[in-house]
């Protein structure tokens, strides 16, 4: 057995670990790998920190390689350890904890350090950078205590940080030394458009301001500028640039200027020592984005695996601003200069701006604002130096035919990185498409992670599908199948259930030729819903096709316990009920009792084996807080008590909740009733919101206060309380019959159009039919908690835990 060579990586970050991952695939067993990292975490995706800060992801979600990956691959990992010395003659590295490891090959991937402006007072508490999970956690924590943040630096990173603070409920000023933000990525018009869009979101800009001093006692209280003015702040984040982290390399005598100098194979000036990532300086450039780091890593990995590789010759970079909800794209050389000409489109009505810079008949750069769909195609043309002399100039921005682009991907080498965020190459995507029979961008995403992060590469992935599958891929038809088990769309399946008289889940899958005999976790619940919707009276619900919460009739929590929410019609309760809830909570040692956003009580942390006994003692109906069903009807106090009220919102809410409780719907449904347009029950952001107005009631449809906030559209105005119920019946039944499983009314209303839905429910004949079918659907529902209490079989099948001795 030959001795393995020793490979040591300093820096457990994106660039280094990616190179090692590649290397392990190319030459498994060639090296014995040791990794040192200063941070306590396994390798994580730094660019997604902004999503964590913005509240869209959790720290755990952005881990790329969990600890077990290192173990499975036989890698020795030293986290929380900083390498402090390299002995280049003895070929060893030593850490601050005193561990010394020898190497045959050494990779430095130490990244960079945020640059901190040496202002007086910069050492005060509350002054920080934005680079690591730790920084992110500090920012999130501070937002709980403090109200006002200042971000110094109006670049990409500064704006993402500022957006994060807004999401965390803080006020934020962005201080920038120039009069245009993101000047390194945007030209003046685009920069001003972006500023306006961000101002609309609540960001405040202090432009052309030079910081002079950070004021405060122990903790920062404000920022003073050269012009003498002061801005208040409880927290200051500096995002003014990064410096390659070369302290270690310099100490060891590696040539640095300012990054560690590397050649086209990432070799430094010292034999057997390599550098990759932000700390490296290649042909005079140190990159600060991930896509080029992955390209470097791929070359380095091949070199170390002794696989033939083309040299790394530098990268053309592009950027997208994430999290802000504003579409901005910029790539290549986008500033006008001598010898360049530009094509510009500026549509002030739609807020769209596009600029393409051309030199010697080639596109060399582009800036897009508002509509960035051309981005990937333009980048392609920049990278390939496409000659555009034969092209209609205005068509450069309009050519969306796809044929041009598809032939573009054909010319790319298999190593070309398609998804910059996750480092997925063309080769990986194409073989996944072929070997696993993928047919949609969604499937490619699930299978290879390409386009999972910023989504900028979706058009390229689509082109690759077209290129690999040929004519069988039609992206325009883009038939949305229920899931990858079938070629059929939702409408085709529902039609087949109706016309062929299909009666159970297995039968549907059988008759319609499902690829997996028993389907998957996506289609099984969908089919179960459609069958129940079509045949409410005869269909026997299939509990094995229900998602856990709907099968157990309680919400599963991350530790496997459940939460229990009893029904409280209209959010109205009484002392006896409250007492009973309190007693039950005590008797079952419920760890947490919480009021929900839907005006009821949540008992959290209940063991599954306790559920049925607890329900029995509660003696209240299930609140369906877990289901794709009617959740709550939120009410304000209304005319009974409120001096502004014109309608009895509580009574109407209670009546609605009693009418529609236990109704299965494509996705959860929340309703609200407010006694006047002051809208204290938030009727504007509910699936159906009712508002009392002088002489009647307004019904708002398709509102949503969740992931994508949407204000409801006015569906209709009615006079009586009876009509509220009638129109709601028709509306909800129409949603049940035409909605896709999992589709909220906000998406459904958007898809069908409020005018169409209004036409349907206002047409008396259609409304009566819908109401009749709703009546049937409601007539067969039963309280699931009662059913479980009454049936030994249900209790045994679903809730029993067997303890063996």
């Amino acid at each position: 057995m030959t001795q393995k060579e020793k490979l040591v990586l300093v820096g457990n970050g994106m660039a280094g670990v990616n190179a090692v991952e590649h290397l392990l695939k190319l030459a498994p067993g060639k090296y014995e790998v040791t990794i040192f990292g200063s941070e306590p975490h396994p390798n994580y995706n730094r660019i997604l920190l902004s999503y964590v800060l913005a509240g869209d992801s959790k720290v755990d979600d952005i881990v790329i390689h969990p600890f077990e990956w290192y173990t499975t691959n036989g890698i020795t990992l030293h986290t929380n350890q900083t390498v402090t010395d390299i002995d280049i003659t003895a070929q060893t590295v030593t850490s601050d904890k005193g561990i010394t490891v020898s190497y045959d090959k050494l990779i430095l991937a130490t990244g960079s350090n945020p640059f901190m402006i040496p202002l007086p007072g910069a050492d005060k508490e509350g002054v920080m950078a934005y680079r690591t999970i730790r920084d992110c956690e500090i920012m999130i924590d501070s937002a709980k205590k403090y109200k006002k943040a200042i971000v110094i630096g109006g670049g990409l990173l500064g704006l993402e940080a500022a957006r994060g603070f807004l999401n965390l409920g803080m006020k934020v000023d962005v201080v920038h030394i120039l009069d245009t933000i993101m000047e390194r990525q945007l030209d003046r018009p685009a920069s001003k458009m972006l500023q306006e869009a961000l101002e609309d979101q609540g960001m405040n800009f202090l432009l052309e301001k030079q910081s002079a001093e950070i004021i405060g006692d122990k903790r920062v209280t404000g920022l003073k500028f050269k012009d003498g003015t002061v801005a208040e702040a409880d927290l200051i984040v500096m995002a003014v640039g990064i410096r390659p982290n070369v302290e270690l390399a310099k100490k060891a005598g590696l040539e640095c200027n300012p990054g560690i100098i590397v050649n086209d194979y990432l070799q430094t000036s010292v034999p057997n020592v390599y550098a990759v990532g932000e700390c490296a300086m290649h042909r005079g450039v140190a990159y600060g984005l991930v896509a080029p780091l992955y390209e470097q890593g791929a070359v380095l990995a091949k070199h170390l695996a002794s696989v033939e590789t083309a040299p790394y010759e530098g990268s053309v970079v592009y950027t997208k601003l994430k999290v802000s909800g504003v579409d901005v794209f910029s790539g290549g050389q986008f500033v006008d200069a001598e010898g360049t000409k530009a094509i510009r489109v500026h549509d002030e009505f739609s807020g769209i701006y596009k600029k393409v810079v051309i030199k010697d008949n080639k596109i060399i750069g582009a800036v897009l604002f508002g509509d960035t769909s051309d981005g990937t195609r333009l980048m392609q043309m920049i990278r390939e130096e496409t000659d555009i002399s034969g092209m209609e100039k205005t068509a450069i921005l309009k050519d969306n035919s796809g044929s041009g682009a598809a032939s573009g991907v054909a010319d790319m080498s298999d190593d070309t990185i398609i998804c910059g965020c996750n480092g997925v190459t063309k080769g990986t995507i194409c073989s996944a498409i072929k070997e696993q029979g993928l047919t949609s961008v969604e499937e490619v995403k699930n299978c290879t992670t390409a386009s999972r992060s910023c989504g900028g590469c979706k058009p390229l992935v689509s082109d690759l599908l077209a290129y690999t599958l040929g004519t069988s891929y039609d992206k325009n038809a883009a038939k949305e199948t229920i899931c990858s088990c079938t070629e059929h769309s939702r409408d085709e399946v529902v039609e087949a259930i109706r016309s062929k008289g299909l009666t159970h889940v297995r039968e549907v899958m059988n008759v319609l030729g499902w690829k997996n005999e028993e389907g998957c976790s996506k289609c099984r619940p969908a089919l179960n819903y459609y069958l129940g919707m079509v045949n409410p009276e005869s269909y026997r619900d299939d509990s094995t096709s229900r998602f856990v919460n709907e099968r157990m009739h309680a919400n599963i929590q991350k530790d496997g316990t459940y939460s229990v929410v009893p029904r409280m019609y209209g959010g109205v309760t009484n002392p006896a009920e409250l007492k009973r809830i309190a007693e039950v909570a005590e008797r079952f040692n419920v760890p947490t009792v919480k009021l929900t956003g839907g005006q009821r009580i949540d008992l959290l942390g209940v063991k599954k084996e306790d559920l049925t006994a607890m329900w029995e003692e509660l003696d209240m109906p299930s609140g369906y807080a877990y289901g794709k069903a009617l959740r709550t009807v939120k009410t304000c106090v209304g005319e009974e008590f409120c001096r502004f009220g014109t309608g009895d919102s509580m009574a109407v809410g209670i009546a609605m909740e009693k009418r529609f409780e236990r109704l299965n719907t494509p996705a959860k449904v929340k309703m609200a009733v407010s006694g006047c347009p002051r809208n204290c029950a938030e009727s504007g952001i509910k699936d159906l919101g009712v508002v009392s107005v002088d002489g009647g009631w307004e019904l708002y449809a398709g509102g949503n206060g969740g992931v994508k906030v949407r204000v409801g559209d006015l569906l209709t105005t009615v006079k009586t309380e009876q009509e509220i119920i009638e129109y709601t019946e028709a509306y909800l039944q129409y949603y049940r019959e035409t909605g896709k499983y999992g589709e909220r009314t906000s998406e459904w209303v958007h898809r069908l159009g409020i005018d169409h839905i209004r036409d349907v429910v206002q047409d008396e004949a259609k409304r009566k039919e819908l109401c009749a079918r709703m009546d049937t659907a409601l007539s067969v529902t039963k309280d699931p908690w009662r059913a479980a209490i009454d049936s030994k079989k249900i209790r045994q099948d679903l809730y029993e835990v067997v303890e063996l001795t």
Partner: protein
Amino acid sequence: MSVKEEQLVWVEAVSYEELAFNTGKTIRYQGEEVALFKLSSGKLQAIQNRCPHKDGVLAEGIVCDEHVFCPMHDRKIHLPSGLVQLPDTGCVKTYSTKLQDGIVYIGFAKAEELAS
């Protein structure tokens, strides 16, 4: 990898008849928690009741053919091998089962095995 038959303790668990198809049963034994499944084919499968991703309880997952989908974040796990399916990775411990006179037995490693 696999523990030899003779090193197993066969523990009597539940009646086969009383197990519902495609519905996991949570079983605890000496600090271990097992999810036991009776598949549509009638076959029995037992795996550790902890998803390698974030400790999701697998007994409550949707079962399709020979796979269970974790109820937490939908990782797909192959029951006979315990392997997490692509694009995710990882594996779950599997347990041997046997059926005798209508009773399901689960094979646990002998105590000293567990301790090592």
